Every structure is written in structure tokens, then in C-alpha cells.
């Protein structure tokens, strides 16, 4: 569970997040909002890369404020980045093993977790292929596999479906829906694809100008007139 308590983040004169209050409790939560709404900033605050101006965040009741990004990884927080960051010179399995090196309990359990994660995302057969030879979908899958290592408690995914075509998005959707059960973890999903959000997220938080516009069951939130006006209406 993620608790956000009157969180404000300022970049110069901009308030990227503005007194945000929210409790994310569902196993899969959507995080949506127009460009510049503060979605990535929220992920950066949770993962410890951006220091808030005021307010606090907590993970399963543990206050995160003041902890280094690495400590948060140790507490089970995982994230992906808006752009994919697969290393070209490492194979798929090495890219994932590079995470296990630092977050798995033992070397053995690490290797097991890497195999499980690669099989889960469907890259079992492609494990020894160099990063540069993987296509965009496979690279996105490597990025997801990386977050599944070391018993994650919360995974924050920043637009994991960006750039994928329809059938790939379909596969992604089925995969994401299985993650909380299969890995006993909570998933927070940022995406601009309302359909993807609607089909996998139980609850959804909508941001606009760093403020909470709506939070609740995804269908209800997406049907909320205020959300339609601020967000969907602009599309």
C-alpha cells in the first residue's frame, strides 16, 4: 500500500505536485493525467530521486522520507523509467541478472528469480540474445522482468506500453494483470492508453496540474465528468 500525505513538489515556480493526498490500496492501480500532470514526478518522489518540498510518502506503513533510493529498493520498491534502458552490450539474461546481483538474497535464489522472471515475460527462449538485437517489445519485457526480481512489494511502471502496437499491448495487458498474483506484489501503472488502464487497473488515481482530480474504481473514475473534461476531453 502506498500512502501519499499532502505532497508538494516544486521545480522553481512550478508546482509539479500540489498538496496531493492519496492512498493506493488496490493490487493494480492506474495513474493517469495529461502531459505534465506530475505522474513521473510522483514516481520520482516515491523512488527517492526527487525530494518533496513538503509532505510525506509511505510504503506499507513505512515512512520513506529521507531514505536513499537504494534503501527503498531494499524495502521492495521497484520502478521502470519512461524510456527503456536495456543495456545493448548485455544479453537479456545479463540485463536481468544485473539486478539480481544487488537485490536477491543469495546467488542461487537470484539465478532462479532471473529464470522465473524471463519465463514469465516470455523471453525464456531469447535469454542469451544481446540487448541490441532485441526488438522494442522484447526490450520492454526485459524492463518488466527487471522489476520482478528480489521479492518486490510495490512496482511502479512508467508507461511500459509506450510505442507498442495493438497486439503487443494486448499481450502486455494479460501479463500485467497476472503480476500481483504471481509475484505477490502491488503494481502502479502509468499509461496514456485509457483502454489499457481500464482493462487492468482496479483503482485509478487521476492527476491534473499536480492535484488529485479523482481516485477510486477505474470505471467510475473514467466516467467522472470532471475527469472527462480535464483529461479525456482533450484527446
Amino acid at each position: 500500500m502506498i500512502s501519499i500525505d499532502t505532497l508538494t513538489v516544486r521545480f522553481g515556480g512550478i508546482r509539479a505536485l500540489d498538496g496531493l493526498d492519496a492512498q493506493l490500496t488496490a493490487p493494480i492501480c492506474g495513474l493517469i493525467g495529461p502531459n505534465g500532470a506530475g505522474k513521473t514526478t510522483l514516481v520520482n518522489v516515491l523512488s527517492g530521486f526527487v525530494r518533496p518540498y513538503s509532505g510525506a510518502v509511505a510504503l506499507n506503513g513505512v515512512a520513506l522520507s529521507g531514505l536513499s533510493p537504494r534503501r527503498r529498493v531494499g524495502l521492495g520498491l521497484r520502478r521502470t523509467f519512461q524510456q527503456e534502458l536495456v543495456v545493448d552490450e548485455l544479453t537479456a539474461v545479463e540485463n536481468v541478472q544485473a539486478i539480481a546481483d544487488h537485490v536477491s538474497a543469495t546467488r542461487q535464489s537470484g539465478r532462479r528469480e532471473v529464470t522465473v522472471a524471463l519465463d514469465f515475460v516470455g523471453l525464456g527462449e531469447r535469454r542469451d540474445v544481446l540487448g541490441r538485437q532485441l526488438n522494442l517489445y522484447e526490450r520492454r519485457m526485459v524492463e518488466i522482468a527487471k522489476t520482478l526480481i528480489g521479492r518486490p512489494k510495490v512496482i511502479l511502471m512508467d508507461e511500459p506500453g509506450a510505442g507498442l502496437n495493438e497486439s503487443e499491448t494486448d499481450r502486455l495487458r494479460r501479463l500485467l494483470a497476472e503480476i500481483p498474483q504471481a509475484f505477490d506484489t502491488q503494481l502502479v501503472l502509468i499509461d496514456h492508453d485509457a483502454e489499457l488502464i481500464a482493462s487492468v487497473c482496479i483503482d485509478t488515481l487521476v492527476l491534473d496540474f499536480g492535484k488529485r482530480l479523482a481516485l477510486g474504481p477505474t470505471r467510475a473514475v473514467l466516467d467522472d465528468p470532471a475527469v472527462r473534461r480535464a483529461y479525456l476531453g482533450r484527446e
Partner: protein
Amino acid sequence: MTEISGKTEAFVAAAPVTEITLATRAIAVVAVVGLISGIIAATCGGYWLSNFTQAYCMVLTLLGCALLYGQLGLVSLCQWALVGVGGWVSLRVYHSFHPPFVFTVLAGGLGASVIGMIWGLPALRMRGLYLALVTLMLASAFQTLVVVTSFPVGGPGFLGQVGASGNARVMMARPAFAASDTAYFVFVALITLLGIFLVEAHRRTKPGRAWALIRKDEHMAIAAGVRVVFYKAWAFAVAGFLAGVAGALMAGLFGQLDASAFAPTDSIIVFIGTLLGGYDSWLGSLLGGILTRFVPALLIDFNVNTYLGFMFFGLALLMALRDPLGIGGRLTLLAVRLWVKYEGRRRG
């Protein structure tokens, strides 16, 4: 990381790299180093043998320099000064304790490794040109210091100078098992082989993977739980260790060291040699190291003006800038292609 993006493009062609097993690679290393060293040991003596022994010390230094540049994109222009540091420490330890030679060498390596880590601290904040300039200034500072204090020659006190005390200069003795020039060269070749294995082992395991993440994106590495500061420092420690070992081996070769052999320009030449040979393969460091020593020695042998030596390095730099793979990378690519073709034909 703009400095090494060119390499990525060039390596796209080298597709089947992963098909070659570790054992095959290890055998290739032993075979190539063994062959080159065998030819040198069998045919050279005196001037040339001494030069090739020094060339192998250069190879060890290049291995570290290439590690820093290839794995982390860090330009260090103080690696030859670290050879001096290693030489200084090994001479100091030798004259104080007369330990077995291997310990003297290890002491030089560890000493330069610690100093290398300290000199690498600026890299936590800066990279590219700024880091290059700072490390170059460190190399100059070392030269100034060592010109004033000189290397220990068995005299009293911490600095170990003879001067006023009237003591005789004491040479560092080579180990009994490598007393002759040829035996010493073979010994240095074996250490070089170990150095290559040390670097390759790093590149292919946990540290290499951590460096790859850092090179790709430091924030991503942090979010992956990598201790970025530790792994950067570790790279400098390994590079410094290799340079320090080279310094101790130089001290063993000559019995003493001269301050004039550790100018900042030599550290620049180490970097040029690294680019010329190629920073992504052990073969690059091997060939780059031998060439940067061999060509100037050849020019001296032919009584050619030493400024031509600088022109050689200028040309080498131009070549290196044109081809980020370097000579070693090109040859590795060629060898891999031939091997894959051969294997393909053998299996039908």
C-alpha cells in the same frame, strides 16, 4: 555517454559474440599471449628484450585505462603516474623489508590501487573533458613531487635517498627464479596474462554488469540497487592496481626508477595507446601497449629524431578517432567471424 556511443554502432555487426564459449576465449588469450611472448623471448635480447618487457608493463597499464574508458566512459590521464606510484611503493617496501618479489609486486599494486581510488574521486562528480583535465593535473603533481623526492634507492629515512649519508645506492634485486633478462621477461608476460584474466573476469561478472548499468544510466543503476560510488571506486582500484603492478615490474627490470620516466605526457600516451588498440577487448590493450612502446624504440634504434615519436602518436590518435573499435577490436571481430564460419562449416 557521448564518448562511447560510436562504439555501440560499430559493434552491431559483431552479432555472434555470445556463441563462443568462455573456455575458447580463455584458450585464445593464452595462445595469443603465449605465441607473441614466445617469439620475443626466443629472438630478442638486450635492448629489444628490455623494451618488450617495458611494453608489457605498458599493456598492464592500458588494461586498466581501457577498463575505465570502456566500462564507464571515464577518461583518466594519470595512469602512467600511477605506474610511478606503484614503483615508488614497491621500492620503498623492498628496501625496508626485502620481502619475496611477489609481495613487492603486490605491494606496488595495492599502493597504486589506493592512490588510484583517491585520484578517481573527482569522477564521482565529473566526466569527459573535466575529469581528463583533473587527472592530468594529478599526473603533473605527481611528477613534480617525484622529481623533488626521487625514488627510494636504499638510503635511510622514509624517502630512502643516499645523498648526504654517503651510503651506496642499492638496486632492487630480481627474484632468483627470474634473474636473467629472458626469464624476467617471461615472468612479466605471465603477470600480464593474469592481468588480462583479472580484467576479463571483472567484465563478465557482477562488477561488469554493474558498470554496464551505470554507463547506461546512473539513475537506473541506483534504482536497480547498485552502489554506484562503490563500483566506480572499484574500477579505479582495479585500474590502479594494474598500473602499480606494472610499476613494480619496471622497478624489478631496472633495479631502480628514474623520475624523468614519469611525465604527464606518458599518461596521455597511455590513453592514446588505449584508443589505438581499442578499449573493449584485451587484444586491444595487448597490441596498443606493445605498439606504443615498440614504435618509439624502433625510432631510437634507427637514430631518428625523437620528435617523430610524437608525430607517431599524433597519427595514432587520428587513426583511433576514426575507428572506435581500434586495432584489437577489428582483429577480434575478424577472428570471431572466421571462427563462426569455421564452426558453421564443421557442423555442416
